[in-house]
């Protein structure tokens, strides 16, 4: 295969993203066992679900509400995963090919693989960027998840190490790169206030879902938004 400059550049940006993102898996693994999952359950989640935001959301709600908050945990995970569906739509014409290739592509269609792909200048480089980033993070994320889970399991009383505060900080880290315009900042503050105010009133998990209503209302009315829609993924790279 002839390796063009674009090809090499695509691989280089993929690897940079792979190393940066795989490290999150360590915190996910440790926090998941802290939330009450077994090492097995934690690893199955990273293998099957493979979407950081959704995975953190599910274990976050299990941490506060236990297994009885299951419905809210599943709903929050799925709502956070909805954006992956938009990325898939964006990637479908780039991936092309047979349904089997699309099936494989679907599993690794996440924020990072889509962002690296669409940043490349040629179709070939876009494909290279997508597969290298997606596959690389899939491998790295699953290895670090297992390592984090084993580490979390060995630590015992996690509050002593501040791991509960680390969970909140992890969500803040996923949120941070998305706060570049007025509209998302206002939605974030309103959602946090709604969730905090409803915490004493509703069973664990439901305040988070109620806060999602803020996004739906602002999104449908485009309150404080710009007239023209921005491209779907451009700013989603952490």
């Amino acid at each position, binding site marked *: 295969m002839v390796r063009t400059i674009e090809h090499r550049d695509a691989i280089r940006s993929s690897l940079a993203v792979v190393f940066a993102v795989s490290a999150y898996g360590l915190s996910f693994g440790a926090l998941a066992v802290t939330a009450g999952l077994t090492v097995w359950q934690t690893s199955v989640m990273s293998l099957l679900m493979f979407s950081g935001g959704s995975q953190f959301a599910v274990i976050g709600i299990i941490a506060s509400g236990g297994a009885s908050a299951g419905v809210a945990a599943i709903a929050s995970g799925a709502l956070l995963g909805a954006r992956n569906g938009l990325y898939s739509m964006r990637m479908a014409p780039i991936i092309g090919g047979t349904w089997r290739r699309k099936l494989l592509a679907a599993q690794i269609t996440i924020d990072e693989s889509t962002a690296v792909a669409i940043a490349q200048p040629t179709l070939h480089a876009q494909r290279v960027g997508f597969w290298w980033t997606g596959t690389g993070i899939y491998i790295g994320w699953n290895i670090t998840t297992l390592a984090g889970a084993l580490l979390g399991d060995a630590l015992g009383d996690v509050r002593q190490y501040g791991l509960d505060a680390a969970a909140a900080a992890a969500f803040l880290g996923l949120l941070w790169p998305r706060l570049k315009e007025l509209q998302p900042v206002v*939605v974030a503050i309103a959602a946090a206030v709604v969730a905090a105010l409803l915490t004493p009133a509703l069973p664990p998990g439901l305040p988070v879902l109620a806060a999602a209503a803020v996004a739906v209302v602002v999104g449908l009315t485009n309150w404080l938004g710009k007239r023209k829609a921005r491209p779907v993924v451009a700013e989603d790279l952490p």
Partner: protein
Amino acid sequence: MSIWTIVLLSSVAVLMLKLAGYLVPASVLERPTPARVSGLLTVALLAALVAVQTIGAGQQVSIDARLPAVAVAAGLFALRVPFVVVIIAAAGTAALIRALT
């Protein structure tokens, strides 16, 4: 509902959403509203999770070492410090406050 049920159902749901995007016609993407709602949904859910993980304790509100730890994390994210370093700093802040009080 068992933890296994939650893990499997939520995983399948997220996987189905990824697959669905490869099956629907691309014209849906041309419309700005679904893209905007989905982007804001992500922001709202993450912000709500920050709030609940910082001050929630089951169905109670509790102000403790987590709040200063998250404030430290916010400052470090603003300074563009890498994710993992911030997480460790936040955990360290909470651990230190708990050890001293």
